[in-house]
C-alpha cells in the first residue's frame, strides 16, 4: 500500500549513528550534550539532551533538506498520500500560516468558516488577505458551530469569484466534518486552492472508517497536528501539499518565519511517530474508536450528559463525525462545560482538553487506556450527583455572526485606543478575544463589537473560561480603532 519502506525512520537512525560516533562538539548548542547544564540534564535525561544538536551534514538541515530530513519528508508524504510533506517545528500554527501565506497575497480574498483557529486569522494579519466568512450552521441544542454547508460555500464562491482559496476545518475541535470532497471540487472548478486545517485530523490518514482526509479529498494543502492525535512531541507538525502546489515556493514561504535551528527532538519525534502510525495506526485508532464509543455509551447511561456521536450526521453541515472525539454536552445537568472542566481538574485530578459554555471535550488518542476512561466516566457520574443544578441562569451558546468592517491586517496596524469593555459597543475591535482552548476567536481584529458579543464575553469570564487575546490581561479593557469606521 505504501510506495516506500515505512519501517525506516531516517532522522532517528541518523541520530542513533551520530550518538555512537561520539563527535566532539565545538558548535552550538552550548550545553554540549547537557554537560554544561547539569540540572537540565538531570531533569530531562541524558538520552534527551544528548540529541539536542545542531544541523550538520550527517543530520541534514531543515531549511534546505537534501538527505535524512528530505527522506523523512518523503516517507511522511508517502504515509499521508501527499505530493510532499514538510516537517514543521513551530506548531501547527506555523503550518497554517505557511499555507495561507503560500496562497494569499495582500488584498486577496479567502473563503473560510468563522470558527477557525486564531492561527488562521493571525495569518491574515501577516499577509493582508481579506476573510470572506461562511457562517457555519449551529446546532441549537448543543450550541456548537458545525461544518460549512455545500450550498453556502457555493454561494460564497459565486459572490466572490475573485477569492483565491477556500479553507476548511477537517474536523472542527468537536469532530465535525464538512463535505470536504465536494468543497475541494467546487474550489478547484472556480480556480481556487483548497486548504484544510487538520489540526485535529491526523488519524484520518491511518484509521479505518474515518472521515475522508484532506489529501484523499484532493485538497491542495493540509496542516496536520502530528502532536495531537499522532503522538509526536508538542510543537511538531506537518504541512502536506497536493500535486498542484509547487514545493519550492512553499519551502520559501516556510523559511520566511521558521527557525534555522530546527529541533532534532521535534524532528525525530515526527519521524518515529510517522513510522508508528504507518505500521500500527490502523490497529491503534480502531482501539481509540472503541474506547470512545464505550465511553459515550457509559456517559449517556449516567443521565443528563449527552456524549454525541455519529447519530448527528446529516449529510451536509455534519457530513461526517470523527468518532475518536469524546465531546459531551453538559448543560442538561445544569452546569456549563467550563464548570465541569474545572471540577474534573480541581476535584478529580482529571485534565480534559477544554470546556466551553455548553460542552466539554476529552481528547482520546494513542496513549489512552480503559482504566483511565473508567475514572473519567465515574468522575462525571459523581459531578452529576454532587453538583447538578436546575440550570437556571445558564446561557445558550449561540453563533454570533461577525460583521467584518476592515481587514484583520488593517485593524491590527491601525491607530487604536483602549476603552473599558462597556464603552466599546459599536466600535471596531483591533485585537482578538477568545477562550483558550479552544482558541476560536469571539472577536477578531476588524470586527464590530456588539452587545451580544459583550454579553458572551462577560458570561464566559464569569463561568471561569480562560480568556486570552487582548493586551489587557483581565479583559476589562479592549483595544478599538481610534477612528470610527
Amino acid at each position: 500500500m505504501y510506495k516506500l519502506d515505512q519501517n525506516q525512520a531516517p532522522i532517528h537512525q541518523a541520530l542513533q549513528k551520530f550518538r555512537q560516533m561520539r563527535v566532539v562538539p565545538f558548535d552550538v548548542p552550548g550545553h554540549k550534550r547537557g554537560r554544561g547544564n547539569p540540572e537540565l540534564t538531570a531533569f530531562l535525561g541524558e538520552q534527551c539532551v544528548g540529541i539536542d544538536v545542531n544541523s550538520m551534514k550527517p543530520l541534514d538541515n531543515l531549511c534546505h533538506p537534501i538527505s535524512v530530513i528530505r527522506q523523512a519528508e518523503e516517507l511522511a508524504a508517502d504515509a499521508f498520500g501527499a505530493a510532499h510533506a514538510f516537517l514543521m517545528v513551530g506548531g501547527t500554527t506555523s503550518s497554517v500560516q505557511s499555507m495561507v501565506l503560500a496562497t494569499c497575497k495582500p488584498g486577496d480574498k479567502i473563503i473560510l468558516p468563522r470558527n477557525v483557529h486564531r492561527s488562521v486569522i493571525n495569518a491574515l494579519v501577516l499577509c493582508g488577505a481579506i476573510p470572506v466568512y461562511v457562517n457555519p450552521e449551529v446546532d441549537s441544542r448543543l450550541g456548537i458551530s458545525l461544518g460549512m454547508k455545500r450550498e453556502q460555500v457555493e454561494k460564497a464562491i459565486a459572490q466572490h469569484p475573485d477569492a483565491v482559496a477556500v479553507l476548511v476545518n477537517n474536523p472542527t475541535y468537536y469532530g465535525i466534518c464538512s463535505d470536504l470532497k465536494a468543497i475541494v471540487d467546487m474550489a478547484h472548478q472556480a480556480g481556487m486552492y483548497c486548504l484544510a486545517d487538520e489540526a485535529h485530523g491526523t488519524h484520518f490518514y491511518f484509521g479505518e472508517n474515518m472521515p475522508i482526509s484532506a489529501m484523499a479529498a484532493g485538497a491542495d494543502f493540509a496542516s496536520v497536528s502530528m502532536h495531537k492525535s499522532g503522538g509526536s512531541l508538542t510543537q511538531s507538525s506537518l504541512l502536506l501539499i497536493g500535486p498542484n502546489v509547487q514545493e519550492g515556493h512553499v519551502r520559501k514561504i516556510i523559511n520566511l518565519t521558521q527557525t534555522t535551528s530546527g529541533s532534532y527532538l521535534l524532528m525525530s519525534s515526527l519521524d518515529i511517530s510517522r513510522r508508528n502510525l504507518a505500521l500500527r495506526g490502523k490497529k491503534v485508532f480502531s482501539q481509540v474508536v472503541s474506547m470512545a464509543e464505550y465511553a459515550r455509551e457509559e456517559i449517556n447511561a449516567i443521565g443528563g450528559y449527552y456524549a454525541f456521536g455519529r447519530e448527528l450526521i446529516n449529510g451536509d453541515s455534519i457530513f461526517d463525525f470523527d468518532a475518536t472525539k469524546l465531546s459531551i454536552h453538559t448543560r442538561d445537568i445544569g452546569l456549563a462545560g467550563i464548570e465541569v472542566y474545572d471540577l474534573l481538574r480541581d476535584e478529580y485530578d482529571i485534565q480534559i482538553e477544554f470546556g466551553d459554555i455548553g460542552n466539554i471535550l476529552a481528547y482520546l488518542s494513542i496513549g489512552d487506556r480503559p482504566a483511565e476512561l473508567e475514572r473519567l466516566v465515574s468522575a462525571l457520574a459523581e459531578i452529576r450527583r454532587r453538583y447538578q443544578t436546575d440550570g437556571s441562569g445558564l446561557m445558550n451558546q449561540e453563533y454570533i455572526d461577525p460583521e467584518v468592517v476592515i481587514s484583520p491586517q488593517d485593524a491590527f496596524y491601525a491607530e487604536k485606543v483602549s476603552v473599558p469593555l462597556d464603552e466599546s459597543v459599536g466600535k471596531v475591535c483591533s485585537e482578538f478575544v477568545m477562550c483558550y482552548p479552544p482558541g476560536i476567536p469571539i472577536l477578531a481584529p476588524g470586527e464590530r463589537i456588539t452587545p451580544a458579543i459583550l454579553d458572551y464575553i462577560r458570561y464566559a469570564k464569569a463561568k471561569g473560561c480562560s480568556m486570552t487575546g487582548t493586551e489587557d490581561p483581565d479583559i476589562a479593557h479592549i483595544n478599538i480603532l481610534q477612528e470610527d469606521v
Partner: protein
Amino acid sequence: MELWFSEFHAPDVKHSIRVDRHLYSHKSDYQQIDIYETPEFGRVLTLDGNVMLTERDEFIYDEMITHVPMAVHPNVQDVLVIGAGDGGVVRELARYDSIRCIDLVEMDDQVVKACRMYLPENASRLDDARVHIYFDNALRFIRRCHAQYDLIIVDSTDPFGPSEGHFTREFYGICYNALRDDGILVNQQGSPFYRHDAEAMQRSHKRIATTFPISRVYQAHIPTYAAGYWLFGFASKKYHPIDHFNKEKWLSLNLKTNYYTVRLHVGAFYLPAFLERLLEEVEDKPCDRT
C-alpha cells in the same frame, strides 16, 4: 545457589526474602503475577514485583481489614470487596453467619486462578454460596450501585499501579453512593513511613475525609510491607469506629483470631505523633484525637 526475591520499599531501601522455588509466573492482561515458595514466609504472592501477601503474615492484614468494621456495624448483610482476588478477606468475612451476600470485584481473573491453585488456604471460602465473583473494573462496577451495601472493603494494590483508580476522589464518591445510609468503607491506606508512601497516603486520606463525615485511620504491623508498618482507612456515614464499637457482641461470636483482639481494636486507632500531624495536614476539620 542463592535465590532471593527483592523489592524496593523506597528508592534506597530494599527488602529481600530467600526463595526456595519459583512456583508460578504469568503475565496477565493487567500485571505480572508470581508465586514463590520461601523458607521464612511460606508462599509469597507478588504482583508486578510487589509483595501482596505471604502465607506467614497475611492473617494480620486480612483480620484487621475485616474484623474492625464487622465489630462496629450492628448488622452487616451485604458486603462488597474490591480486589482481594486471593480470597483472604472473603475467608474472614465468611465466618460471619449474619452476612448474606459477598460481592467480590477483581479485575484480573488470573490472580484468582493462581491463588486457587497455589494459595488454597486463602482461597478456601471463594466457593461459599454467598460469594459472587465479578471480574470487572471496580469503578465500572460500583458506579452502577446505589445504597445497596453495608460494608465495602477495598483491598487493592498500591496507588502507583493498575489500582491507581481505587485511590481517587471519584472512587470514594461512587463507594459513598453505593453504601446504605449507615454504611462503612474500609480500605488499605498504605504505609506512612517512607516519603513517597506517606504522600500517597495523605492524598487518599484527604479524598476520603472530604467524602465521608467520619474518616479515621488505624494501623497494624505487617512485616513484609514497606517499613513493616501499615495503615487502614475507616470511613463511615454514621458509625464511629470506637464510639460504636460493640465489644460484647463481637466476643459473643467466639471467633478465634491471631492478630485482632477487642483491646487492639481500640489501640489500633491510637497513632504516633508524626502520623497524626500528616493526617491533620490534609484534613479540613481535624478529628478529635484526645
